[in-house]
């Protein structure tokens, strides 16, 4: 239990997917303009990431390793992620049209979100057991959502600031992300194990 909690805190704050591992940057810089879309994207990512992590773990350990087909891992993982996103999209469209409309085009975009594949790859590399993998996927998504919301808030404020033209747009977003990353480094003292 303690281990799972440590994984959660570590992944959300100390080794945040976006600020420490640079995963999920495309949507991070593209979507975080408004808080509403940030929330939608973040929730979708949490869902897909948790599922992908769990399903990939099962397929990896019970099929790929058992059959000695580990070298097919990357191809299999990306197919799993793409299929999961498709299924989630169909599911949401059928059972919650309101949610589907809110998420809009962000849902299919999640497939190319490096955070999802990155999460799966890290989970395999660190040799987590099943429940650790599930928590890891969930925490990764939560960390992503957290940073996305903070960025959205800052970006909305930046709209009213007088940013020099060379820095407008991606440049100031990146610099903001850098400062945010510096801030999050302060969390590294949280876990002393």
């Amino acid at each position: 239990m303690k281990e799972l909690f440590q994984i959660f805190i570590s992944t959300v704050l100390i080794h945040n997917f976006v600020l420490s591992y640079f995963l999920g940057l495309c949507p991070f810089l593209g979507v975080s303009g408004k808080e509403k879309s940030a929330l939608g994207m973040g929730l979708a990512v949490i869902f897909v990431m948790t599922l992908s992590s769990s399903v990939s773990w099962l397929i990896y350990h019970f099929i790929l390793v058992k059959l000695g087909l580990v070298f097919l891992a990357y191809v299999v993982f990306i197919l799993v992620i793409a299929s999961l996103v498709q299924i989630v999209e169909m599911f949401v469209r059928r059972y919650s049209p309101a949610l589907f409309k809110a998420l809009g085009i962000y849902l299919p975009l999640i497939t190319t979100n490096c955070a999802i594949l990155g999460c799966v790859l890290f989970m395999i590399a660190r040799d987590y057991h099943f429940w650790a993998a599930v928590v890891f996927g969930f925490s990764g998504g939560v960390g992503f959502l957290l940073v996305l919301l903070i960025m959205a808030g800052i970006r909305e404020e930046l709209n009213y600031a007088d940013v020099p033209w060379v820095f407008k747009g991606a440049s100031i977003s990146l610099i903001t992300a850098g400062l945010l990353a510096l801030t999050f480094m302060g969390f590294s003292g949280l876990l002393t194990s």
Partner: protein
Amino acid sequence: MRFNLKGIFVLAITCSLCGFLLSLVYSSAKDKIKDNQKKAIYQAIEKIAKGYKEVVPIKVRSIDVYKLIDEKEKIMGYAFLVEGQGYQDKIKILGVINKSGTTLKGIEIIDSKETPGLGARIGEEFFTSQFKNLKVFPSIQLTQKEKVKNNQVKAITGATVSSTAVVNILDKGIKELREAGVFND
């Protein structure tokens, strides 16, 4: 999602061809990959230990241990590979210890993904050289100040977690080997 037969067919063919291509590439490279892993360990042993003639790999519990045999066919020490969680990711350490398990001859960091410029410095000479002829009784200790006892190691400033991890991983490994009776010959 409309089920397009031709689409499924194309996808299936693509996957099969790719899978076939990958299995070819992999089977031609996999021996080399396994060798690389072994090479790193043997190179590290060569760096730390001297005067041995033969290396005999054995497994003690879940730890990879390498008996170092001298030209008189006697065991002169052991090399062991241990790993554990560091700050960022797993740290893999190769340690060389004397026959009776009381003094470390030296260590080499085989694998680590610690923070560059800080935690990653555990791989540097100034840190690993502290483990040369280090006593391990009752356990290896980490200190922030200057080391006074011969079983102490000074932590790297700004990399306490990584330094602590190295010490703990080694300590745990040595204790486990001792419990398993490795040093009781």
